[in-house]
């Protein structure tokens, strides 16, 4: 049933947003900036998850969410004060809730032990008041139950007192959102005595019956002295999803006031909570579960309700966006080609066409930027997940740590955000597990026993900087060096600078943990982190001060579709090198160049010797050059943190280029990252500097050893 599946998908998408809102609220509470509205927002988020889960028959999720919701209800009604301990439980339960959502999405079952532990912790918060421990009967129903028989719920006798006459007609969208009329009736019952009559007159003959429509409506007689606002509050969650007519009934039973339009202010938050109906035996007929893939409407109505995200948003298929991005890329290329052709005409300066072209160029670039920004997403959800990683790591490593995040609204390309999750998780774990000392050591060193991990994001000149900083003991360089020697990664007599030692962490097969803990050292080393970031066109650097802490800085491109490139000439071919990977360009003087044995060439730069890679030879474009003094050398960093000079014929230009994958129609080529299209319409290949530099390493082992021995100066990194 594709219809159901797409609704399911929408539900889980919404769950993600709701969980985000939940964690945002929890973070606000932690930061001490919470208001009543924060709790309300959290409550609504959990409640919406519960409601949706109920519609899909996801019982474990419903049960957990219910318990969780009950606790927030207690907080809301101020019967439970939030202390740090309570907050801890709430956060853990939030983690568990997101696990539940994930498990439900993947149709797995969760580890019951963890679940029970969290549930009992939540139960403890509620004290002995476990009266409503049972999951609400009204939420446990199967998703496609169809009850055609009208049942009059007559558990409340008709009263002669004043009250309201309510005509309640849900739309299909209301059921789509997982709302249950029973929940509303239960709320109304708290306001007063309720008499419910089902109006099923609009159900068509079976032949015309559509599963996607809602046909039922209810006539409600509410006997209550409560204010009309109270009555409307019951409908808060379904606002906009149903037609409601409320008319006041005088004590004598006649309709007094004219029908009231239902448009309560959004801030008017219900004080009533969903509690189990006093008589759960009441079986109210439900409209057939509507099935209609209309994801946008419910999403937006949800949005409107949530005060924390007032901006209207649109959910768009990613493929459509990517197609648009592609076309915008074409536009840029096309514009460059036109510019070139017009230049060839050698028109007089200031001619109309040149002016037009200039504004066209401007527009094309604006379109390109606008389109790229569609894919941009704040790193906030990613950072929120890291808070959980810190909590879990603390639990296992019995350390105390606090995560401080900054710049959460910094926007990065969606793919970058997605692919950053794993490396970042690993680095955060490392920061807590390896970076921070245990509480006693910290106290001895005169620090607070709670360690601090700072996660910051910021835009910096066309790239995004993400920093993971801990205030721990800093890198233990002698230990790192010993391990590297023991593992045969470096020769025992190698003399390394501090930054070179730090960079040993990124070598494949390196792990500093002496005991492989549960967290780190699960086979994913920092080399994987580095590779993942390089694959995104970024780079990682380490700064570490003994006793003060370690900072890992990740610099990432804003987008993956466009990059700043240096256009170079190589054996009659035009190629592009990403500027991000070039540390320095050098026109060598003859005495900067040194030979090493038959086919080794070294560049002398500020006292060190750097191996030279003849790119043209490596790509098989021509045989190896004997001399490099008429070439340009591009100094790049190798994956292991060393440096390497790529020899190219000349530098032609520097420009923004649109990346075109080679994989679709051809495949991977070693040494080539991708392709691009130049202004003349020809294709230029983009060099993969990491691969080119790495290809040098097999043959340059001896060279680098010599280099290490020769290296007398402790040279700081070129940057």
């Amino acid at each position: 049933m594709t219809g159901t599946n797409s609704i399911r998908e929408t539900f889980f998408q919404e769950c993600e947003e709701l969980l985000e809102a939940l964690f945002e609220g929890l973070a606000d509470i932690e930061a001490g900036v919470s208001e009543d509205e924060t709790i309300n927002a959290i409550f609504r988020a959990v409640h919406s998850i519960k409601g949706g889960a109920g519609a899909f028959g996801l019982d474990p999720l419903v049960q957990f969410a219910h318990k969780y919701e009950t606790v927030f209800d207690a907080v809301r009604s101020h019967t439970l004060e939030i202390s740090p301990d309570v907050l801890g439980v709430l956060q853990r339960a939030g983690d568990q809730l997101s696990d539940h959502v994930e498990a439900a999405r993947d149709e797995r079952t969760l580890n019951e032990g963890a679940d029970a532990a969290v549930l009992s912790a939540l139960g403890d918060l509620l004290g002995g008041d476990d009266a409503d421990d049972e999951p609400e009967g009204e939420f446990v129903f199967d998703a496609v139950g169809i009850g055609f028989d009208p049942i009059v719920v007559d558990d409340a006798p008709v009263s002669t007192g004043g009250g309201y006459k309510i005509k309640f007609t849900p739309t299909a969208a209301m059921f789509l959102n997982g709302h249950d009329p029973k929940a509303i009736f239960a709320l109304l019952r708290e306001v007063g005595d309720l008499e419910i009559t089902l109006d099923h007159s609009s159900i068509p003959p079976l032949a015309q019956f559509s599963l996607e429509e809602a046909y039922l409506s209810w006539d409600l007689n509410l006997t209550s002295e409560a204010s009309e606002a109270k009555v409307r509050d019951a409908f808060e969650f379904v606002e906009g999803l149903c037609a409601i007519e409320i008319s006041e009934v005088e004590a004598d039973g006649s309709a007094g006031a004219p029908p009231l339009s239902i448009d309560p202010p959004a801030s008017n938050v219900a004080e009533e909570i969903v509690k189990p109906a006093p008589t759960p035996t009441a079986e109210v007929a439900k409209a057939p579960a509507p099935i209609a893939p209309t994801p946008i409407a419910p999403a937006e109505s949800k949005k409107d309700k949530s005060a924390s995200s007032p901006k209207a948003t649109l959910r768009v298929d990613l493929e459509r966006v990517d197609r648009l991005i592609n076309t915008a890329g074409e536009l840029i290329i096309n514009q460059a080609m036109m510019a070139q052709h017009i230049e060839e005409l050698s028109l007089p300066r200031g001619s109309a066409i040149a002016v037009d072209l200039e504004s066209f160029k401007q527009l094309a670039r604006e379109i390109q930027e606008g389109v790229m920004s569609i894919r941009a997403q704040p790193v906030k959800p990613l950072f929120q997940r890291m808070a959980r990683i810190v909590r879990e790591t603390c639990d296992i490593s019995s350390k105390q740590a606090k995560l401080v995040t900054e710049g959460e609204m910094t926007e990065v390309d969606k793919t970058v955000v997605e692919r950053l999750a794993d490396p970042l998780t690993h680095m955060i774990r490392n920061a807590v597990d390896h970076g921070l000392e245990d509480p006693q050591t910290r106290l001895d060193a005169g620090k607070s026993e709670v360690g601090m991990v700072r996660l910051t994001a910021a835009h910096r000149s066309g790239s995004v900087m993400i920093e993971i900083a801990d205030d721990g003991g800093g890198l233990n360089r002698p230990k790192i060096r010993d391990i590297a020697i023991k593992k045969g990664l470096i020769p025992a007599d190698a003399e390394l600078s501090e930054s070179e030692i730090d960079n040993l962490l990124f070598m494949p097969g390196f792990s500093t943990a002496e005991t492989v803990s549960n967290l780190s050292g699960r086979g994913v080393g920092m080399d994987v982190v580095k590779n993942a970031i390089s694959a995104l066109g970024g780079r990682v650097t380490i700064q570490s001060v003994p006793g003060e802490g370690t900072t890992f800085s990740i610099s990432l491109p804003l987008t993956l579709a466009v990059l700043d490139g240096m256009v170079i000439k190589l054996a009659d071919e035009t190629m592009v090198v990403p500027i991000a990977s070039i540390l320095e360009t050098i026109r060598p003087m003859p005495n900067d160049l040194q030979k090493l044995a038959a086919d080794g060439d070294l560049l002398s730069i500020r006292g060190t010797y750097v191996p030279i890679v003849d790119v043209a030879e490596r790509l098989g474009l021509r045989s190896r050059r004997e001399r490099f003094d008429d070439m340009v050398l591009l100094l790049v960093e190798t994956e292991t943190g060393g440096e390497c000079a790529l020899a190219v014929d000349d530098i032609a230009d520097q420009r923004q280029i649109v990346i075109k994958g080679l994989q679709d129609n051809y495949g991977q080529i070693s040494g080539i990252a991708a392709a691009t299209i130049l202004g003349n319409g020809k294709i230029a290949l983009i060099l993969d500097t990491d691969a080119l530099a790495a290809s040098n390493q097999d043959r340059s082992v001896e060279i680098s050893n010599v280099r290490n021995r020769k290296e007398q100066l402790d040279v700081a990194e070129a940057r």
Partner: protein
Amino acid sequence: MLQKQDSSDSSNLEFVAFLLGEQSFCIEITQIREIRRWSPVTILPHSPRHVMGVINLRGAVIPILDLAAILGFDSIEPSERHVIIIVQIGEQICGLLVDSVSEILSVRPDVVQDTPSLSHERGEQSIQGVIATEMGMTRLINLDLISAIPGNEAA
């Protein structure tokens, strides 16, 4: 299946016939995206002999294959007179360099004969079948095999 309707018999198959190394070959018209004149390519490093390079086809990077080399002829020295046939094989698009395009054939499906088996023929597997024409014989290229040759598989 076929877009053209001018044919008297709509069940007919249509093929584009072209010349390569003085032999006639053909490709089913539904697999052909377009036919264009040779234009200089960007050479790919470490590519096999039959991969000439890539061209820019309205923003897409398309590899150009030397069909002659695949079929075991001498490689063509490309010039302005040569023609590139852009074909779509599954999700993949590539260009095939040929000498010249000769005609469009419309034949009944049963006219396509199985390739006679020749134990020593090098390019035999690349030929899916043969079609007798007034001019002699044309050989139907097996594009699936071309997409599967080394150096050309999509990553």
